[in-house]
C-alpha cells in the first residue's frame, strides 16, 4: 500500500544541513497496522509529516521515494498533493485540543473536508457528516454538528478529529500519537475506536507512538526508530519475544509491565540518552549506549538488512546472524 525508500529530511542551518531523518525505509501492506515507536526526537512524527509533505518549516525532505498504491507521491505539485491529503491519506494529530478550528462548528469542518474531495451537495455532505459522527461514537450526531470544539470534551474532540481524517475515505490513516494527550481511561476508548474502524473498513494504518503497550494492542508490525534511523522492523510478536536490535531490547526492558507481582520488578534503563539532532555520533547512532558495540559500530553505519521477513540495522544482532 505504502512504500517508503530512503526518506531523508534535513534541517537547513546557516552553514550545514542537519539530518533529521537519515534514509528511512519501511512499507505498509494493504490492511496492515504498522506501529512506529521510538523516543521523542527519534523522528517518528517527522516521518509521518514527510509522507504527506507537511513538514514544519524549515524542515525539508531532501531525498527518498514514497509510493502510495503504486503511484509516486513524493514529487507531486501542490494541487495534486492537496488531493492526496485527506482523500488518499488521512492524518490524525496528537492533541485534539489544538487540532480543531476553534471558531467553526464541527459540522462545518466535516462538510468542508468532504466537499474539498468528494463531488457531493451540501445536503448530502451534511447527512454524511452526521453519519460519521455516529460512526466514531458521538451521541446526538445531528446536534453535535452544530457544536463548537470548546463545547466537547477531549475524548469527543479526538473522535471528531478521527472522523475528519476518515471522512473522505482515504486508503491510509496516519495517526500521530492519537492518545498521548488524553486521559488514560479515554485512551482505551480511542484505541478501541481506531481498531473497530480499521476492522470495519480494512484501511491501512500507521500508528506513531512512544508507548509499546499501545503498539502491542494495535499493530501487526513495528518499526523501531532511533536517532532518525530505523533500528528494526519486525512483527509485534517477534519484537516482543525475540528482538534483534539491542536498542529494541533495551526499549522493551525499560517498559514497565503492569502485574500484581511486579512491584519491585526492576525496570532496566538504557544507559545514556538519545543524541540530539546534529549531535548524532558517527557509525551506528546507538553505539555509545550499546553493550555489544565493537570497533565496526563506531566507524560504519549498519545498513537495514532483511532476514527472514524482518529487518534490522545492527552488526551484532541479538540471536541473529552478524552482519
Amino acid at each position, binding site marked *: 500500500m505504502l512504500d517508503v525508500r530512503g526518506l531523508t529530511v534535513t534541517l537547513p542551518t546557516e552553514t550545514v544541513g542537519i539530518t533529521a531523518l537519515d534514509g528511512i525505509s519501511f512499507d505498509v501492506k494493504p490492511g496492515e497496522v504498522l506501529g512506529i515507536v521510538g523516543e521523542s526526537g527519534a523522528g517518528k512524527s517527522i516521518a509521518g509529516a514527510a509522507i*504527506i509533505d*507537511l513538514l*514544519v518549516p524549515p524542515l525539508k525532505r531532501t531525498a527518498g521515494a514514497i509510493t502510495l498504491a503504486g503511484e509516486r507521491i513524493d514529487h507531486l505539485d*501542490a494541487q495534486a498533493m*492537496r*488531493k*492526496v*491529503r*485527506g*482523500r488518499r491519506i*488521512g*492524518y490524525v*494529530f496528537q*492533541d485534539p485540543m*489544538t*487540532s*480543531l*478550528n*476553534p*471558531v*467553526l462548528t464541527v459540522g462545518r*469542518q466535516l462538510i*468542508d*473536508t468532504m466537499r*474539498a*474531495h468528494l463531488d457531493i451537495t451540501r445536503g448530502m455532505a451534511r447527512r454524511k457528516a452526521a453519519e460519521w459522527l455516529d460512526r466514531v461514537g458521538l451521541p446526538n450526531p445531528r446536534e453535535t454538528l452544530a457544536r*463548537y470544539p*470548546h463545547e466537547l470534551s477531549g475524548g469527543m474532540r479526538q473522535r471528531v*478529529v478521527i472522523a*475528519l*481524517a476518515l471522512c*473522505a475515505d482515504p486508503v491510509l490513516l496516519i495517526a500521530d500519537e492519537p492518545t498521548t494527550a488524553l486521559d488514560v481511561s479515554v485512551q482505551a476508548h480511542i484505541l478501541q475506536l481506531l481498531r473497530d474502524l480499521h476492522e470495519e473498513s480494512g484501511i491501512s494504518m500507521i500508528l506513531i507512538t512512544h508507548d509499546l503497550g499501545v503498539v502491542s494492542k494495535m499493530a501487526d508490525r513495528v518499526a523501531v526508530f532511533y536517532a532518525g534511523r530505523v533500528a528494526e522492523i519486525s512483527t509485534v510478536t517477534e519484537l516482543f519475544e525475540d528482538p534483534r536490535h539491542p536498542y529494541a531490547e533495551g526499549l522493551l526492558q525499560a517498559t514497565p509491565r503492569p502485574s500484581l507481582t511486579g512491584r519491585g520488578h526492576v525496570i532496566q534503563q538504557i544507559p545514556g540518552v538519545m543524541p540530539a539532532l546534529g549531535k548524532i555520533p558517527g557509525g551506528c547512532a546507538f553505539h555509545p549506549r550499546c553493550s555489544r558495540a565493537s570497533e565496526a559500530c563506531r566507524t560504519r553505519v549498519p545498513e537495514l538488512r532483511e532476514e527472514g521477513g524482518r529487518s534490522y540495522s545492527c552488526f551484532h544482532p541479538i540471536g541473529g546472524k552478524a552482519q
Partner: protein
Amino acid sequence: MLSYVSSRVLQTVAVLLVISFIAFLLVQNLGDPLAILLPPDATLAQRDALVRALHLNQPIVARFFSFVVDMLHGNFGISYRTQEPVAKLIAERFPATAELAFVSLLITIVIGIPAGVYCGVRPRSWMARAIMFTSIAGVTLPNFVVGVVLIAVFSVRLGWLPSFGRGATVNLGFWTTGLLTRSGWESIILPAIALSTFQVTFVIRLLRTQLMEVGRSEHIRFARARGLPDRRIWYVYAIKNTLLPVITIMGLQLGNIIAFSVVTENVFAWPGLGTLFLQSIQAADIPVIAVYLIFVGAVFMVINLAVELSYPLIDPRILKRTS
C-alpha cells in the same frame, strides 16, 4: 447571550453618564452663561427667568439630572457663538464627517484586508516586502502631511481633483449627502485617502502578524492535512481566527476618524465636525465643546458596543468565558 448583551449595554450607559457628568461640570464651571446670554441692560426679572430656565438655582445633582433629561429630549443647549441650538449645529455638520469616515473605512477594508492577507500568507514574497516597506510610510507620516502632498500632486499639479470643500450636496431631508453627486465624490476622494492611510497600513500590519501566527497553529496544519484548498484555509479557517483584534482596531479607528478628523478636515476645509470643533474652541463656545465631547464619547461607545456585540458571532468561546 442575553446576559452578555445586557451587561455590555449597561456598561456603555454607565460610561456615557460619566462622560456627560464631566462635560456638565465643564459647562457649569467655565465662563458665566448669564453674562454671555443676557444683554448688558437686562432687568433682574429677566435674569431670574433665565436662571430658572437654565436651572441655575438648583443643587448640582438636580441640575445634572435635568441636564441629562434635557439631552434625552434632544435639548443640548445653545451655542454662545452663534446663538443657535447646539443640536442643530452638530446635526448640520455630522453628515459630512460621517460620510468622510465611511469612505475612508471603505478604503481601509477594500485595500487593507486583501493586502494584509497577502502579506500574512506570503510574508517572504517580494510583493509582501514591498507592501510592508511602503506601509512604514503610512504609519509614520501624519495625516496632514499626506493631505498636503495629495493636494499638491492631484489638485495643484495635475488638477484632477478639488482641494477643498464637499462639492455639491443633495438634501435628503434628514441628511445632506455628497455621495450622490459627481463633484461630491471628487471632493471626498483626497481627504478620505489622507484619512485612511494610517488605518490601511495599520490593518495590513495587524492582519499580517495575526495570520502569520494563526498560520503556524495546529488546526491550520490539520486543515492542510485534510486537503482543504488554500483559499478556503486562509480566507475562512485562518482569517476567522484573526478577526477579533482586527475588528476591534477598525472600530476604534472609525471612532477616531469621526471624532478627531480635526486636522484632516482643516487641511481640506471639509465642513464637518472637526472644523466646528476648532471654531468652537477659538470662540470658547463651551456648550458646543461640551456636547461635542459627549457626542464623541457616545460615538466611541456605540461603535465599541457594536464591536463587542459582534464578538460572539465571530468567536463563540467569548460567551463561555463571560458566563
